[in-house]
């Protein structure tokens, strides 16, 4: 099967300064792909490059066999790519329903009511809060709002930048469960994670980045079983 | 034009250019060093002008004072009162986004105008203050006195320039530029960003007061029209942007060149037929407005761009960068 997203020899960064160097990465349809690595390895930069928020120095990014490197952010949402930033990822003074609605503006879904229904089935917590300003919600609920907003445009590929950052352990589990549930609906997911152990356990395949370069890649299970990876990137302790 | 007339035109031109140079240097301290937007230059100018005028003018029934104090005392007092005004404005909004400082400074300038026009007992309202002395009065008579005053103004320009340069190169100035260029980093290394900004604004405001005082002494007469924000605030901004903000030489060059454009266009437009001549000042305003836009878009670093003083090990690199 041809990959949904193919990053080939990508060098990118900010203001002419490369952060990632010659990165290769493949995402097949309906996969969950996780990118892990130490702080400053350039994990988020990979996501941001797909989303045209960095300056790309060389290499190619192909989405559904179409070159998208350098295409404006605004045009990517209608193509079926949706991103969820790590921080400041909601519109605090808009209500939850309005937040969800914003997701439909750039890429109107075929049946808005149906999509909203399925999003609210995924995130039942939000049902009671639809008319509340999103800024009044807890951290975990905010994460659901921003995921919900992204899903409202019926994306093919979802880019998640550390979706569990700063969440309590209880919510952490739920967010990982939700990511699996989102994949069940046929959406491909490329995510960056700090909670590497849990992330690898739900990943089909994962990439380890070090110093802005590819270090290793394998299935999630194999990486979890790999002693060297465990020692260097998973805090060394035995799998729980 | 006869040579003598030309000479005195030039003297008048250079006196005003000198006063503008001080305003530009003052704005450069606030904006060029500190990144602080002051939209009320005319206000601080006016405070300085009225302070010095009231303290040095001959006693009069129509306004407060005058106290016939020496001109130098007037100028120092002008710096103090304008500095205090600047302190009050900056104290309120130094923590906020610079737009608020712009609004507050333009607000204080407008209110000061209201006070100057309305409080007759203090300023004699729109009739103004007369008999304002110049330094070394009586030493020379008539037009020759202008030459003396020209020297006086440019001595002060030189002093202000040297002080500003010292400030720029001092540890204080370096910290200030760090604050301007990366506030968070400066905060992170423990610099009291707000107090640095406050000091910058106060120094700039005080210098603007000095310029105001000089203009009152030059004209020997002061009325609210002398503090027209168009001529003071706008023109000074254009001068600094054109000259090169952050660079003190640039500030002076900007003042001289923009004031030259302004004065030369006046000569041209004054020769137009009467019905055009009345509108000529609007054409000049329009040109200044367009010049500002041009500089902002195409020429942001100005005639003499800012050049950070080289650190010892850095000198060679500095040279190649020009």
């Amino acid at each position: 099967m041809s990959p949904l997203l193919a990053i080939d020899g990508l060098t990118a960064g900010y203001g002419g300064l490369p952060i990632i160097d010659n990165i290769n990465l493949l995402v097949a349809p309906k996969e969950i792909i996780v990118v892990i690595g130490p702080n400053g390895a350039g994990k988020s930069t990979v996501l941001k490059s797909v989303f045209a928020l960095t300056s790309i120095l060389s290499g190619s990014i192909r989405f559904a066999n179409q070159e998208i490197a350098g295409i404006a952010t605004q045009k990517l949402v209608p193509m079926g790519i949706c991103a969820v930033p790590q921080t400041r990822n909601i519109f605090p003074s808009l209500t939850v329903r309005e937040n969800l609605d914003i997701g439909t503006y750039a890429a109107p879904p075929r049946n808005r009511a149906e999509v909203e229904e399925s999003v609210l089935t995924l995130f039942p917590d939000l049902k009671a809060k639809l008319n509340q300003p999103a800024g009044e919600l807890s951290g975990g609920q905010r994460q659901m709002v921003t995921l919900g907003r992204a899903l409202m445009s019926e994306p093919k590929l979802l880019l998640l930048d550390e979706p569990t950052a700063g969440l309590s352990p209880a919510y952490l589990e739920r967010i990982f469960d939700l990511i699996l549930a989102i994949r069940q609906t046929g959406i491909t997911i490329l995510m960056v994670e700090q909670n590497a152990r849990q992330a690898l356990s739900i990943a089909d395949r994962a990439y380890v980045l070090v110093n802005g370069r590819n270090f290793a890649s394998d299935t999630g299970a194999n990486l979890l079983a790999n002693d060297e990876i465990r020692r260097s990137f998973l805090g060394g302790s035995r799998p729980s | 034009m006869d040579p003598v007339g030309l000479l005195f035109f030039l003297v008048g031109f250079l006196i005003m250019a000198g006063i503008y140079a001080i305003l530009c240097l003052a704005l450069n301290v606030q904006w060029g060093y500190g990144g602080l937007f002051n939209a009320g230059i005319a206000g601080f100018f006016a405070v300085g002008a009225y302070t010095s005028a009231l303290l040095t003018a001959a006693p009069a029934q129509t306004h407060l004072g005058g106290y016939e104090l020496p001109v130098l005392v007037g100028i120092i007092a002008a710096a103090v009162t304008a500095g205090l005004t600047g302190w009050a404005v900056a104290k309120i909004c130094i923590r906020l986004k610079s737009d608020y400082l712009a609004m507050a400074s333009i607000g204080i300038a407008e209110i000061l105008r209201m006070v100057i026009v309305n409080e007759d007992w203090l300023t004699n309202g729109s009739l103004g203050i007369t008999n304002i002395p110049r330094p070394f009065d009586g030493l020379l008579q008539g037009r020759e006195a202008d030459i003396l005053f020209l020297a006086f103004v440019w001595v002060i320009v030189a002093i202000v320039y040297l002080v500003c340069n010292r400030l720029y190169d001092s540890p204080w100035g370096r910290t200030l530029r760090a604050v301007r260029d990366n506030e968070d980093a400066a905060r992170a290394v423990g610099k009291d960003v707000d107090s640095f900004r406050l000091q910058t604004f106060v120094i700039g405001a005080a210098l603007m007061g000095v310029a105001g005082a000089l203009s009152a002494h030059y004209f020997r007469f002061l009325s609210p029209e002398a503090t027209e924000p168009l001529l003071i605030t706008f023109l000074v901004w254009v001068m600094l942007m054109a000259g090169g903000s952050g660079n003190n030489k640039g500030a002076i060059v900007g003042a001289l060149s923009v004031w030259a454009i302004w004065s030369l266009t006046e000569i041209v437009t004054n020769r137009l037929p009467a019905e055009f001549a009345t509108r000529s000042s609007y054409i000049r305003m329009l040109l200044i407005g367009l010049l500002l836009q041009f500089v902002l878009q195409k020429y942001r670093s100005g005639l003499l761009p800012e050049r950070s003083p080289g650190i010892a090990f850095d000198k060679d690199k500095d040279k190649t960068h020009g």
Partner: protein
Amino acid sequence: MMEFINFYLIPGLALGSIYALGAIGISMIFGILRFAHFAHGDVMTLGAYGTLTAVWVSGLHPLLALPVGIVFAVLAVLAVDKVFYKPLRELPTIYTVIASFGVALIFRSLIQLVWGSQNEVFIRGVQKPVVLFDLIRVSLLHLEAIAIIIGVAIALHYFLSRTQTGRSMRAVSDNAELARVAGLDTEKIVRATWIIGGSLAAIAGVLAGLDTNIQPNLGWNLILPMFAAAILGGIGKPMGALLGGMVIGLVEELSSYPWLTDEPLINPSYKTATAFLMMVILLIFRPQGLLKGRLF
């Protein structure tokens, strides 16, 4: 009591409506484009002169000729945004503030070149006051101004909460980066902001011109109370700015009411200063504004 209503309360509300119409635009522009638009008062003046010209040509009542002034002001701000503001959009916003300063100057000098600097009036002669219940005697203009602001308030509320463009505008104001990531068309939203801001400014300019007379400094003289209103309402909150405008207008008029003695509380020539004073007090104690706007 009737004197209070006739000479202070109603005029205060009318003045407040003018401020509110200007402040809505200032607040929106601040929220979406992130800069204090110093030329907004001069946009008002342009709207007033555009309407005045339409009145001269057509002989219509100024409020009927208003659409001409609105179109004129909107075209002017769209052009200025394209030529002078947009090229600076990637720079720190303070450069755009400086540019808007220059634009204010350009607008004013163009107005003086085209229309001259003398005072003009929309309608000559003394207008008869409207008498209600034999007690309330107010000028028709003030009632019109209050009616307009009520209409604008309802329309604005509907627009911001129900329409796609309105919600997008609030979204950009809330979090511009995320709005971009969500694929919103920022330039379209910016355009909508200028169209609404320019239209409301033109209406405000005509009302202000009807209230006194029309001269090149008409709008510039109102910029301070309008900024104060926008800050009072919380930057980026158009409905807050509307409220802020009403409050500032009322305070300004009521400040010269003889509250304590037989003398006006504050000398009427300092009326504008009360707005500034409120702004200063607000900046010290509650810079986020009454309605918790964005704090920059």
